[in-house]
């Protein structure tokens, strides 16, 4: 009975009939209360966005996978302390972190959000070393400013790592790599202690493989259940070099007895694979520990594992947090199908959830693969048709042990040979290297370099929503709003359903003062997803452009409510508070933004501006300097830093800074103007006049330039020139205050000079 129930649950999950699966699973747990079943139930709850339920049932559990699921639920409920103690219990400092790379990733996120940057960085790096295709971890490292060069991270070591994983996987029993593995009691094949699991995936654990061979052949196949070809050849196929077309049909690489369980998975899965593949981000699945292995004798159930927690989906939506997701996503990527049915489900769910980042994971999901050896499986045979059995010599790592019995690694039911693994891995890594380097450079605000890197991508990757919006962001940071606009609109066309980067697009339109486009964008985004912070940010920008700051503020606050971990929403709230002259709340908002992301230089800038207005020049200089350190290429920040320095009477430094700013961006007229201002206050009028003459060429319709020149001429008592310039300034329709000032200045012109004939 237990087996049947589990199978049903998996089936329902696979078909997204969550309520059904919850119901059945609850009966299962009532009938056979065991921790494994609890885990299955928890994953059902997580799928259904009921993190609180999962939290309650898993509270206090000790199995690694349970702890992992528990940590995910805590994370979603924002109980970061509990999540942390679940993942690394305080009284067992040397306990293994469950789920390997996934666990480290989650732990990294927890540390990041509780302000412990070093630990976060450490864990993300660990995650990456365990699973080099875990893009999300690399992304987080870039955001924290601690990423190493992509070439190093996604380089040869990574290739080796992946290859080893493949082969180890091949030997291991089918396991789900997914982080939220739901180890069904059914499929649990214990390989020994639970603690082992995380280790198994580590490349170096060859031992497992040795242990396995015996057991392996029989039950391991069960993993095969999921060898559903993901994405039956849809767009993903183009990414991967691997898969043999067979993979698509293969469903169960399961040993004959298990086969029947698996079959049904086939059709379902393929349907699900309609993935949002265009995303070129790559997330790798976490190497789920092969923990529980289905025991030969009993398992039949293999199939349904599901997992994909809703957690990942939601988290991604919420800002791509839980790394777990990636594993889910990963499966989708496995175009070649191997996914364990569960895995697959996870994956497909993810894709269907319109995950923004698609994981392109090749190897990891092939948990099921079985190193061929003596497994007689009809299903297999088909898939194997294409695969040639090669010798392990093709495998560069020289880890021939694992390749005994032929370098055939069953992947997705297709037995792949070693070379294909190698080439596949290296291709993915090449892609990741480029994307990673581009992302890292744009996080360091070396935007021009980032753009060059992105251009190296092949067209099919470049023309995807994610890449184009990164390109747009890079242009935006270079203050090249027109190019950014172009890139973003291409991104919209490439993936109209994606919200990633659309907040920056809306700000870009705000800068360009394109209110029609902006309001259209905002409407579209809201109709696509009312619960995404980006949509409300766009809406808020729309109102702000029309100077309706109160409504804009409300919209930004809504965005904050929807996702308090979305730093930009806080920053925009801050900007609106400042426009409404509510400086206290502005400061609070900017500080919340900084709490989420300390490298958000806009918030540092915002704080600097507030202090500048309040004439607290020391604070202002400090904040601008912080912004400058984060983004040393921004001429705007430099010019404000200069202004702050000038207000502190450190005019020498101020002028230096202005000159830097002028050099940094030739198109920015402001530093020249500010420099002229400083020179005027230093009474260095001639230089100032020179500068202003230059500026006149560049921006002939800028009234303040003429006004300042008029002021200078007035000081020199060159009244006709002064008059001329004031007149020009007035013609250019400055604001009312300035009109008043200029007119007053004109009046005063007459006073000292009786000879003037005006």
């Amino acid at each position, binding site marked *: 009975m237990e087996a049947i129930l589990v199978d049903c649950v998996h089936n329902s999950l696979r078909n997204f009939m969550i309520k059904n699966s919850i119901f059945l699973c609850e009966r299962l747990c009532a009938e056979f209360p065991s921790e494994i079943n609890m885990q299955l139930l928890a994953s059902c709850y997580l799928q259904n966005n009921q993190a609180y339920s999962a939290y309650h049932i898993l509270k206090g559990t000790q199995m690694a996978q349970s702890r992992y699921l528990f940590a995910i639920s805590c994370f979603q409920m924002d109980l970061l302390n509990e999540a942390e103690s679940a993942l690394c219990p305080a009284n067992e400092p040397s306990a293994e972190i469950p789920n390997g790379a996934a666990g480290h990733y989650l732990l990294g996120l927890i540390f990041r959000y509780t302000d412990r940057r070093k630990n976060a960085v450490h864990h993300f790096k660990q995650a990456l070393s365990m699973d080099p295709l875990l893009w999300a971890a690399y992304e987080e490292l870039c955001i924290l400013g601690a990423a190493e060069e992509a070439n190093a991270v996604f380089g040869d070591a990574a290739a080796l790592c992946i290859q080893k994983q493949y082969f180890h996987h091949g030997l291991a029993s089918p396991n789900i790599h997914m982080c939220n593995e739901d180890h069904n009691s059914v499929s649990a094949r214990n390989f020994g202690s639970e603690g082992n699991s995380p280790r198994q995936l580590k490349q170096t654990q060859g031992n497992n493989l040795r242990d396995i061979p015996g057991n392996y052949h029989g039950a391991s196949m069960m993993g095969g259940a999921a060898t559903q070809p993901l994405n039956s050849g849809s767009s993903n196929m183009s990414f991967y070099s691997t898969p043999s077309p067979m993979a698509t049909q293969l469903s169960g690489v399961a040993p004959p007895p298990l086969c029947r369980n698996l079959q049904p998975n086939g059709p379902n899965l393929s349907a699900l694979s309609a993935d949002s593949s265009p995303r070129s981000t790559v997330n790798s699945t976490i190497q789920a520990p092969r923990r529980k292995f289905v025991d030969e004798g009993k398992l039949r159930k293999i199939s349904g594992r599901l997992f994909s927690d809703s957690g990942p989906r939601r988290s991604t939506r919420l800002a791509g947090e839980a790394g777990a997701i990636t594993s889910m996503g990963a499966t989708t990527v496995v175009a070649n199908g191997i996914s364990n049915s569960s895995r697959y489900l996870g994956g497909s769910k993810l894709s269907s959830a319109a995950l923004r980042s698609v994981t392109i994971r090749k190897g990891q999901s092939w948990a099921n693969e079985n190193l061929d050896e003596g497994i007689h499986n009809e299903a297999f045979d088909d898939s194997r048709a294409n695969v040639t059995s090669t010798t392990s010599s093709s495998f560069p790592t020289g880890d021939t042990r694992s390749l005994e019995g032929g370098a055939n690694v069953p992947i997705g039911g297709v037995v792949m040979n070693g070379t294909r693994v190698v080439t596949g891995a290296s291709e993915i890594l090449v892609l990741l290297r480029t994307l990673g380097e581009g992302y890292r450079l744009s996080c360091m605000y070396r935007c021009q370099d980032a753009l060059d890197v992105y251009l190296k991508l092949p067209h099919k990757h470049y023309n995807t929503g994610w890449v184009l919006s990164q390109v747009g962001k890079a242009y935006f940071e270079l*203050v090249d*709003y027109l190019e950014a606009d172009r890139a973003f609109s291409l991104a919209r066309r490439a993936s109209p359903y994606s919200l990633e980067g659309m907040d920056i697009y809306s*700000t870009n339109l*705000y*800068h360009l003062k394109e209110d029609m486009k902006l309001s259209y964008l905002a409407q579209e985004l809201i109709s696509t997803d009312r619960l995404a912070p980006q949509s409300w940010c766009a809406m808020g920008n729309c109102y702000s452009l029309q*100077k309706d700051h109160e409504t804009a503020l409300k919209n930004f606050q809504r965005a904050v409510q929807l996702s308090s971990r979305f730093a930009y929403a806080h920053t*925009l709230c801050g*900007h609106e508070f400042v426009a409404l*002259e509510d400086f206290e709340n502005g400061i609070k908002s900017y500080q919340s933004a900084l709490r989420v992301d300390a490298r958000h*230089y*806009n918030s540092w*800038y915002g704080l600097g*501006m507030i202090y*500048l*207005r309040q004439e607290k020049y020391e604070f202002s200089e400090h904040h601008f300097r912080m912004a400058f350190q984060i983004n040393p290429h*921004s*001429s*705007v*920040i430099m*010019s404000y830093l200069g*202004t702050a320095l000038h*207000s502190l009477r450190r005019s020498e430094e101020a002028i230096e800074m202005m000159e830097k700013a002028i050099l940094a*961006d030739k*198109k*920015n*007229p*402001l530093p020249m*103007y500010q420099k002229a*201002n400083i020179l005027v206050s230093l009474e260095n009028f001639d230089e100032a006049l020179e500068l202003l003459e230059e500026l006149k060429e*560049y*921006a002939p*319709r*800028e*009234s*303040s330039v003429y*006004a*300042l020149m008029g*002021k200078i001429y007035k000081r020199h008592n060159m009244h006709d020139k002064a008059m001329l310039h004031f007149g020009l*300034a007035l013609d*250019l*329709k*400055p*604001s*009312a*205050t*300035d*009109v*008043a*000032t*200029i*007119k*007053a200045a*004109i*009046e005063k012109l007459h006073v000292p000079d009786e000879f003037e004939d005006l």
Partner: protein
Amino acid sequence: MATETSESEEEGKISGGNPQLIVDDDLREMAKKAAWSVSSCKPGNGVSSLRDDNLDSYWQSDGAQPHMINIQFQKKVKLQLVVLYVDFKLDESYTPSKISIRAGDGFHNLKDIKTVELVKPIGWVYISLSGNDPRETFVNTFMLQIAVLSNHLNGRDTHLRQIKVYGPRLNPIPQQPFQFTSREFITYSFVR
């Protein structure tokens, strides 16, 4: 600035009114955080009707003339324009005819800065506070008082439907002597 229809310069007569409220972009409404009070009112038609953005609700005074509306700010503000919504067709003898605007630090030192006479106004009436001198474009004050000295057809009490007070916007870039007007400058002048 605001459009005024047929104002005669010597006496400050304003006839008619604008059906629409249109003000320049560089003006903003200043009195949201000010304290509004009135000299008298009929229950149900109190001071809140002056600020509720509803042209159907009005303030009705209930005492002797002159009727006063006091606006007190928390700090000295620069004001440039006062806009009233009145409707002769609906209010007839309740429509104000002579209005005086006073400014000062408090009740003790209010000084008359503008007097206008309205002639059958229907709609928004713009009253600029600027003097002729460019140095007097703005009135820098803690308090503004709008006094209704007399009504049309010699009515005793008055109706006012809405009042808005405008002043210049702050320079978005602090520490600058002048505001920027051209696109190139404005684009580079802030980070969002």
